[in-house]
């Protein structure tokens, strides 16, 4: 069969897994400077699923689409080092402040511009917002079927994909027609590491924005090798309505951010007796700690 065209949605996020003391600023906002920017973990799972399809379906191409500031081009290169064929950086000051609705609007326009495609694969959620809304919203805006919490792709045949989903209490196997939007769960296989050859090949890939900021040239090389230029699209490139973007296009308003500090309370000693254990179980269930 001929290869598939896959679009992977990825996000560069602050690494909230290793939060230090200076992770939050005094005003309660995230101190991005103190947290390293990384490839959102579940988006890496999504990339791996896409690359596995590419491994077994000759002619498949994987395009990474990300929205963010100029430095988000780093994750496009990162994806290329691992086997993605190209990337698009959706970047514009007017995108700034977008919530999930505005983000999915912008992304869906960019996906349309990349048509035709067979699969759009995204991580389930990003570790900074933890909403798990962008993937499903993109599917809705594109009018495509969606399968969430994907863990494994069992087969891709005759325009249909069979997918294993990881649910809270087990797994479910579903089949869906392409084109299709998939969101991938962290229980899916971890992403492969960089490949040496791809890393050497794509190391000079830059967006135009990045090129303006550096003295590095290799001008002739870029002319000869178009894949070294990462596409950079702004609002006008995807034909977006500015009112539906950024803060004005985002119904989600953050009213207040609270710093929650966990404090230890008095401890309670419970013996191993049946009575004590039963009492504890009852207390935990009543307080909805478990059950």
């Amino acid at each position, binding site marked *: 069969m001929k290869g598939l065209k896959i679009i992977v949605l990825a996000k560069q996020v602050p690494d909230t897994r290793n939060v230090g003391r200076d992770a939050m600023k005094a005003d309660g906002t995230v101190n991005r400077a103190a947290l390293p920017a990384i490839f959102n973990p579940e988006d890496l799972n999504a990339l791996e699923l896409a690359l596995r399809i590419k491994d077994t379906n000759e002619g498949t191409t994987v395009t990474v689409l990300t929205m963010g500031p100029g430095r988000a081009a780093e994750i496009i290169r990162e994806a290329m080092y691992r086997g993605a064929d190209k990337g698009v950086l959706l970047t514009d000051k007017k995108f700034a402040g977008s919530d999930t609705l505005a983000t999915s609007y912008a992304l869906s326009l960019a996906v349309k511009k990349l048509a035709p495609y067979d699969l759009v694969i995204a991580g389930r959620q990003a570790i900074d917002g933890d909403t798990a809304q962008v993937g499903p919203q993109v599917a809705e805006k594109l009018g495509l079927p969606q399968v969430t919490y994907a863990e494994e792709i069992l087969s891709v045949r005759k325009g249909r994909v069979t997918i294993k989903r990881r649910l809270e209490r087990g797994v479910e196997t579903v089949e869906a027609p392409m084109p299709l939007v998939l969101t991938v769960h962290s229980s899916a296989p971890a992403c*492969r*590491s*960089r*490949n*040496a*050859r*791809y*890393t*050497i*090949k794509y*190391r000079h890939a830059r967006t135009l924005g990045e090129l303006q900021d550096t003295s590095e040239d*290799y001008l002739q*090389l870029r002319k000869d*090798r178009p894949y070294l230029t990462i596409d950079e699209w702004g609002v006008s490139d995807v034909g977006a309505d500015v009112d539906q973007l950024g803060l004005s296009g985002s119904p989600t308003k953050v009213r207040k951010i609270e710093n929650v500090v966990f404090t230890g309370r008095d401890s309670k000693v419970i013996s191993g007796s049946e009575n004590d254990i039963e009492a504890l179980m009852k207390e935990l269930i009543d307080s909805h700690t478990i059950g």
Partner: protein
Amino acid sequence: MANFYNDNSDLRFHLGHPLMKKIVKLKERDFAEKESCDYAFLDYEDAMDGYDKVLEIVGDICANVIAPNAESVDAEGPSLVDNEVKYARGTAENHEALTRAGLIGMSLPRKYGGLNFPMVPYVMAAEIVSRADAGFANIWGLQDCAETIHEFGSEELRDEFLPRFNKGATAAMDLTEPDAGSDLQAVQLKATYNQKNDTWYLNGVKRFITNGDADVSLVLARSEEGTTDGRGLSLYVYDRKEKAVTIRRIENKLGIKGSPTCELVFRNAPAKLVGHRKFGLIKYVMALMNSARLGVAAQSVGISEAAYREALKYAEERTQFGRPIIQFPAVYEMIRLMELRIRSMRSFLYETARFVDIYKNYNAISEERKLEADERAEQKKYQRLSDVYTPLLKLVSSEYSNMIAYDALQVHGGAGFMKDFPVERIYRDARITSIYEGTSQLQVVAAIRGVTSGIYLSAIRDMYEKETLKPELEYLKPPLEEMTAEFEKYAAHVTEANDGEYLDFHARRLVEMAGNIIMGYLLLRDARMDDKYQQAASAFIDIARAANLEKAEYIRRFNIKDLGLLKYNFDI
């Protein structure tokens, strides 16, 4: 994220040595492939950046896949199922990760799917893999066999076998037999030529074969009937697909347990001749062994790095008598000594790798065109240096790795003797380094030629002594000059006696004296390039001077007539 390359600034330091400019230029043939191949390097800076990025990948996989697997691989080990070696789960996962990352066949030319890496970054990768899991480093490191096929095999043989490495083919070098270990001239496995179908067939037994069930095996065999020495041996390549080898058993070893060591029986196994008949041992295996020795040296440094880090961590965390134990002189001396030894042998490792790089590149270029007179002179110079540096390096580094692993376990006290800490595995893994690819005693036999021929002395006098120093380092030079004079004196003293056995008896002392001087100068050079090495240079030279004095004193007082008293007399 943990990374075994990024967390060790010594590696980048050695990668950036000025001689790399020459090596890269030679290896890339003046960047001839930059137009035709999309992953060829464009210029020197680009190549260095490329090596750096690829080593980052190695460091990532080693820290996040291979090292975490090391414990389970050690416990599980390989097994023999239906005459096939089944790797431990972790081993298979490691191999898969490195294959996927395109890190097998790194030094091969790009047309065979390789990365065309010079020895220096390739050896560096070997060091990093060894730090993660020394046993696995063997399986990965046997890609050296590809280099041998590339160096000596016909075009046809290269085309058949080399592209398979990048796709993950494993390799083995089948040399040892039950009665041919250190003495490879005694190899008996028989190769017979069948004229009818123009094929060689192998019959016989090989023992202690690392990764014996590999996809591609280089086999040393006796092709010349009636011969008894090395001149009757040829080298063959055997393809596992032929299924003509029985694996009799997998050895149960002290260390490097993840690396399958096999006893093999060849029964009419079809094989292809590598290069020319009769050159098997005297040329090809010698070359293969030299790169394998460099590999063991890299492995020794990697093991030492792992041991040192375990010891340092434990010594900082463990509190006794109200203080972390690293604050006690008896402990910090052990830790510092580890650090010094690692720094010195690592400098020695990459110095040797650079020498090998230069002459091997000239060898390869000489196949493409005639070398200029100055190029031939350089080729010869670096080949001669490599020939005596390699065994000395293997000797020193493998012995150091054993000392370091011993001390690292000692720092842990009783806890180190338990299976609870990685150091006991590292200690067991280190033990093989001074045995395989030629025991330490055999490295001395090869290295003593560097003493008798005067190559070590001229390297010291003509290269290292002439390097300019910063004024603040000048104080370190006189002790090294004294040590050199002393070495010269006692080398002459021993060789002038003109007694082979007397020379053999003191050989190890003499080559180790040379090694100490060379490493002292190398650290001095490191200190010249980066201030942070000054303390290491100073401390190492102090220790090396005392060690050489002790050896010199023993030689001085030793009466040649007393040699007889030490002998075992088997005539009785």
